[in-house]
């Protein structure tokens, strides 16, 4: 065996078919990240800046608010007035908030469940998708708020029509996002599953669902506040039913009680904040592997 190890013969590598490989210079490894303590210090400084600027914005808005309230008390109530109302009878507000929360959560959860089940079926059957999609699009372009009065007539003044409005508001977005997520499995990973003869259930639970989670979470983040809107609007419409923050705002507004209107709005804002916080918390817990969580 001739072992003429000619170093120069390596040049043969520079052939048309192989040029990309031969020309490739070993890439230097990415520079090691900055030393940990400095990075940590930098991060806490950034966090401080973020919180500080946020607080500054809120304080500035509060000052502008108070100036307007002083100049024109019919336009905005004083912050203190609103606070006094809240502090004087917190149970009333809590009860109304509970009612609105109930409408939001039941409506949203049912909508989510239905959207999820439907997306799961649609991802496996083009026919079902073709039948369902046009209906869903029609539902989407029809403002759910407009359907609310009809729902109240059909289902009475109970909670049911409110649930439906709160759910209907977000159904389309939840369905489309979930469907997109379930379809977002990396094709080569799908190939691996196919060569292993993975069952549809295997693929659904071990591939599709985890891949869909980021899509589902971003949809939930957007949709939960929208469901709150649905709940409040349904409470407006279902006059005669005196529960919920929506109804409370209606009643306060009709008697010109600005402070009470804003007290209820403040409770709504806190409610929305709380829900957003819960979703973000769940997302961080479940999606720690996802690149998006690295930036949070």
């Amino acid at each position: 065996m001739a072992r003429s190890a000619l170093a120069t013969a390596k040049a043969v590598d520079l052939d048309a078919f192989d040029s990309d490989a031969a020309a490739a210079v070993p890439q230097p490894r990415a520079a090691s990240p900055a030393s940990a303590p400095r990075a940590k210090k930098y991060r806490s400084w950034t966090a401080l800046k973020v919180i500080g600027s946020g607080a500054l914005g809120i304080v500035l808005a509060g000052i502008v608010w108070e100036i307007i309230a002083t100049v024109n008390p019919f336009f905005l109530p004083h912050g203190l007035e609103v606070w006094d109302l809240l502090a004087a009878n917190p149970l009333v507000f809590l009860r109304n908030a509970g009612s609105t929360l109930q409408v939001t959560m039941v409506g949203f959860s049912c909508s989510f469940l239905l959207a999820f089940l439907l997306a799961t079926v649609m991802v496996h059957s083009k026919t079902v998708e073709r039948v369902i999609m046009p209906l869903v699009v029609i539902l989407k372009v029809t403002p759910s708020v407009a359907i609310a009065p009809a729902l109240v007539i059909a289902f009475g003044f109970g909670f049911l029509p409110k649930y439906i409005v709160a759910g209907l508001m977000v159904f389309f977005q939840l369905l489309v996002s979930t469907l997109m997520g379930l379809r977002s499995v990396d094709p080569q990973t799908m190939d691996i599953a196919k060569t292993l003869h993975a069952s549809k259930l295997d693929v659904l639970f071990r591939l599709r669902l985890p891949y869909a989670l980021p899509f589902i979470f971003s949809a939930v983040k957007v949709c939960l506040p929208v469901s709150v809107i649905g709940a409040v609007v349904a409470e407006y419409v279902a006059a005669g039913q005196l529960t919920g923050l929506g109804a409370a705002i209606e009643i306060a507004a009709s008697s010109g009680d600005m402070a009470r209107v804003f007290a209820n709005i403040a409770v709504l804002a806190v409610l929305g904040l709380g829900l957003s916080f819960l979703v973000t918390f769940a997302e961080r817990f479940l999606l720690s592997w996802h690149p998006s969580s690295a930036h949070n």
Partner: protein
Amino acid sequence: MMSVLERSGPGTAEAPTDLGERGIVFEGVGKTFLTKSGPTRALDDVSLTIGRGEFVTLIGPSGCGKSTLLKIAAGLIDHDEGDVNLFGQTVEAAAASKNIGLVPQSPALLPWRTVLGNVKLPLQVNRRAKLDRELPDPVELLRLFGLGEAIDKRPAQLSGGMQQRVSIARAFYFEPAVLLMDEPFSALDEFTREMLRDELLRIWDRDKKTVLFVTHSVTEAVAVSDRVVVMSARPGRIRAVIDIDLPRPRPEGIETTLEFHEFEDLIRKELKGGWNHGS
């Protein structure tokens, strides 16, 4: 050095007696894709037999159908004509009994699973397939692949080369009868590519699985293969089958020997011939 297309595997002291000894068998395989610009003949009358324990590489210009042929063997694409057999099983049956280990171009790892979790995935899906073969200890296997430190890491924490190692380890772990590798190193820089290639050979040498390997690198083809199948494009056909009679395990620095270069030149000549012929 060139042989007829049909040939049984190396080490044929005893001729293949049953179908099982012939590992991967393509017989008159044809495939036509329907595209917007009309039907495209991707594969035309491709016949090839890969013996048990043989390492065979498909090489050719893009569009020669080498990946299509591999995907047909993997059951990812249906063929229009001919027969495909994996150790006497249809592709479908081979997949059902987990006899196909695929290493795709990208690592195709699940980003939420650890390295160990990814390697174990093949056992967790399709549990109906009762594996009667003895499986290696996954941790031991990962050490063998130089991934001992990375066992509990997530793919995003690893370099591209490390990720591809995990992908190869995943295919080795469940001891499939055939390994199908579709340009597994093509996304890596050359340094990493050579390192991984040597590692693959080292591990393959231990129990010599039947491998069908697709590459567009001549050097890589010579370095890894028992036989190199040169394909030509439009329609995809086998142009030549070249036996690589180099010692196994491949000694260090074999890429610089004259013999190695002779094989490279031979393959290049065939590739260019196919190119000129095609155009």
